[in-house]
């Protein structure tokens, strides 16, 4: 809708201007044929000219682009004025009838003159409007208080000066006229010192501006001459419209003075152009980097920006950045230090600009004489002004043409060098004090950014591990039995305390058939996800093979065979497996590297520890050959305790472990009580031993109490009968 409206507006303005100009032309023909000038017809004609150019202005304004730089606007002004001045200059060579001057009034001697006058006036008038708009934009590009007001003052004064001509004959001049002209010149001078935009041009733009300014000055001096009253063009325009003539003269004068000032002003700014350029690029680079400090999610991008900006801030030829590798453990660092190439192994070139990796190595030197050492040792920036004659780089004989001066800046944080930034130039004394200061300030920023980037990386890694841990914990929790089987022949209780992280403790129950209960307690070596994984595998093996291989020895052998192919060679699972015949109370156990079973009968405890390797240790054949099985009869009231080493190894700070003796005594003391009581007594015992600290390792207890069959109130179920 608005687009449509602006289109309409454009069409209306341009047609209004065209209609007005056409009317002007018709009136001129009438005037000429009548041979009379002045009076109301002249007034109408002048009004139409003013209106036409106002419409022109509105039309041009609607097409106007403001967003160009001052230098570009100057270029545009130059092209436009050059075309017009050359065109107009050539047109004057065409023979024309000229004017008869009578009584300060211009009378054309032929119709051709009228046509030419129209052409000159419209073209030069339009050009003046455009040039004035360009000057306006240039002045406004660095606007200050009063900039706009001063410019408007000029426009108003110039307009008044021009409109005053309505009361005079075309070539008439009065005192008022002269005064107004003086005021116009004052307004021009007032506006011509608005040159602060020059300062912000780049050096290249300044060079262009000088040329543009000079040419524009020359062109507008030419215009001033061409439009002078006594010249053909001047006469033509004065005949066409004295108002327009005066306005054009004012604008041309303004343009002449302003472009002259531009030329001179830029000329004076040229010596400082380079310094200004550098300062502004320093400011923008530092600004960019300080923004980078917050955008540190991509390390490679970050270090790349650091070298790019180093090139920018000091106009270096090449730049590269080395970062100290973060060693994963102190022992690793020690090993590296003891290695053959102590320093090289720990430093990595992370970003290079305009230099090959071979050259960086060559410049630095592979050995201890490396100039990198200078910065590493002093922790301050090192400047080499003349590589050719500098003692520190003289050994680099074949590299003299690669660089002539160089800066080495260490990135230091918390008294530690985390990286080194290099910049080289191929001229001697390439880095002055300012350069070094800027690079140093810049290196400080880079240090912070790199540190932040690393911290973020670390915390992301930690977060990932935490998520993994939570997942593993959840998995482990679900692998443990959700319910303890409730049987009348045995009283069962179990507890597995969640470890600080993810532990490897595992226990499980299964009814192998109607009369056989399998109880399994184990400990997977290692922690975290791998432990949870092996545990899941173990559960699968138990749930499937447990029912097939009834004898514990057989089962463990099969489990070992199943695991041997998948388990990591430094991992193993310790297991204790018992199978209880619910009809007879006969218990069969086999042990695969696990803690011994505690059997308390009649308040006397014994540890049962048949031979057996941990699951995953040794060959299948060897495992099978070495594992032993033990069988014993439970008497009513007997208690069997299975556990993991987290229980016996629980120790407070001083290192005294809970141990087998304490465990045995606690269970012996509980005597006739229930499995739950026994379990709680053990926990209370450990807790007291630990002085109520929580144990480091995870801890699992399974308590099994053989019920005195006579105590069972319910009649035995059919399956129990023989």
């Amino acid at each position, binding site marked *: 809708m608005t687009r449509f409206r602006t289109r309409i507006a454009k069409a209306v303005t341009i047609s209004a201007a065209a209609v007005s100009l056409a009317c002007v032309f018709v009136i001129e023909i009438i005037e000429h044929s009548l041979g009379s000038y002045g009076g109301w017809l002249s007034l109408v004609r002048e009004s139409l000219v003013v209106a036409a150019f106002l419409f022109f202005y509105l039309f041009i304004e609607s097409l106007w682009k403001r967003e160009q730089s001052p230098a570009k606007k100057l270029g545009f002004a130059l092209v436009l004025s050059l075309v017009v001045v050359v065109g107009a200059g050539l047109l004057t060579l065409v023979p024309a009838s000229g004017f008869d001057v009578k009584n300060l009034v211009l009378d054309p001697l032929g119709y051709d003159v009228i046509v030419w006058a129209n052409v000159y006036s419209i073209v030069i008038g339009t050009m003046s409007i455009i040039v004035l708009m360009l000057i306006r934009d240039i002045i406004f590009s660095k606007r200050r208080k009063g900039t706009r007001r001063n410019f408007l003052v000029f426009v108003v004064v110039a307009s008044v000066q021009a409109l005053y001509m309505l009361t005079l004959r075309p070539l008439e001049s009065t005192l008022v006229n002269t005064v107004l002209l003086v005021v116009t010149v004052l307004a021009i001078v007032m506006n011509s010192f608005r040159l602060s935009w020059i300062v912000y041009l780049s050096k290249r733009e300044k060079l262009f501006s000088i040329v543009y300014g000079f040419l524009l000055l020359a062109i507008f001096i030419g215009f001033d001459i061409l439009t002078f009253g006594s010249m053909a063009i001047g006469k033509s325009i004065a005949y066409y419209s004295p108002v327009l003539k005066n306005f054009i003269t004012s604008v041309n004068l303004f343009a002449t003075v302003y472009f002259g000032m531009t030329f001179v002003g830029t000329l004076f700014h040229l010596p400082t152009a380079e310094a200004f350029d550098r300062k502004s690029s320093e400011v923008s680079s530092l600004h960019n980097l300080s923004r980078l400090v917050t955008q540190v999610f991509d390390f490679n991008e970050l270090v790349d920006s650091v070298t790019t900006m180093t090139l920018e801030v000091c106009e270096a030829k090449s730049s590269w950045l080395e970062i100290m590798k973060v060693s994963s453990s102190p022992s690793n660092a020690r090993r590296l230090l003891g290695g053959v190439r102590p320093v090289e192994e720990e430093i990595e070139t992370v970003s290079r600009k305009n230099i090959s990796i071979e050259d960086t190595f060559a410049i630095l030197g592979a050995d201890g004489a490396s100039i990198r050492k200078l910065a590493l040792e002093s922790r301050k920036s090192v400047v080499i002004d003349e590589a050719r004659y500098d003692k520190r780089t003289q050994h680099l004989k074949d590299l003299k043409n690669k660089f002539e001066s160089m800066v080495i800046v260490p990135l230091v944080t918390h008294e530690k060098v985390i990286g080194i930034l290099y910049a080289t130039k191929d001229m001697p004394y390439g880095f002055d004090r300012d350069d070094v200061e800027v690079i140093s300030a810049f290196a400080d920023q880079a240090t912070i950014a790199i540190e932040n980037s690393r911290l973020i990386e670390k915390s992301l890694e930690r977060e990932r591990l935490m998520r993994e841990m939570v997942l593993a914990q959840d998995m482990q929790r679900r692998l443990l039995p959700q319910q303890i089987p409730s049987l009348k022949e045995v009283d069962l209780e179990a507890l597995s305390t969640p470890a600080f992280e993810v532990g490897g403790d595992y226990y499980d129950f299964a009814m192998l058939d109607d009369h056989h209960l399998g109880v399994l307690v184990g*400990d997977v070596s290692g922690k975290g996800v791998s432990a949870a994984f092996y545990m899941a595998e173990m559960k699968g093996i138990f749930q499937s093979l447990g029912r097939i291989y009834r004898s514990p020895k057989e089962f463990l052998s099969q489990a070992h065979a199943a695991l041997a192919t998948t388990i990591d060679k430094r991992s193993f699972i*310790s297991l204790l497996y018992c199978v209880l015949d619910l009809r007879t109370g006969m218990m069969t156990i086999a042990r695969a590297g696990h803690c011994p079973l505690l059997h308390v009968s009649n308040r006397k405890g014994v540890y049962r520890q048949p031979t057996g*390797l941990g699951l995953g*240790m*040794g060959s299948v054949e060897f495992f099978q050959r*070495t594992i032993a099985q033990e069988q014993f009869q439970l008497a009513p009231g007997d208690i069997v305790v299975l556990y993991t080493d987290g229980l016996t190894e629980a120790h407070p700070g001083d290192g005294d472990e809970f141990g087998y003796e304490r465990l045995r005594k606690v269970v012996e003391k509980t005597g006739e009580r229930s499995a739950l009581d026994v379990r709680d007594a053990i926990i209370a015992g450990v807790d007291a031993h630990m002085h109520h600290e929580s144990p480091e390792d995870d801890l699992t207890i399974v308590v099994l109490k053989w019920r005195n069959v006579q105590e069972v109130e319910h009649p035995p179920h059919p399956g129990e009968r023989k």
Partner: protein
Amino acid sequence: MTKFKIDTRETNNINVLDLKGYLDAHTAPELEKALQALIDRKQYKIIVNCKELTYISSAGLGVFMAYIEDVRKNSGDIKLSNMSSKVYNIFDLLGFPLLYDISKDEVEAIGKFTVSRK
């Protein structure tokens, strides 16, 4: 927590690792590095002296398991010696005496190496 320390020494072409302190999941990588370093140098006759070893966790035991195959393949061995009874119990529980040569002292272990060489 007691720190863990390893010293390596060589007698009669046999490398002896002296373990001191607490060997658990955190310190196991150090033992691993020490063993790897020996294997990298093609030193396959290794005695691990556990005289000052106060504790070993499953992660520590796993380190021995990780290297024994390699070492034996190259007709060497990892022999363990000078264990305190507490540490021996941990090894014993898992069945280590079945798989590894555990000697009372270093001299006995060295002796076994020389015998097996002949």
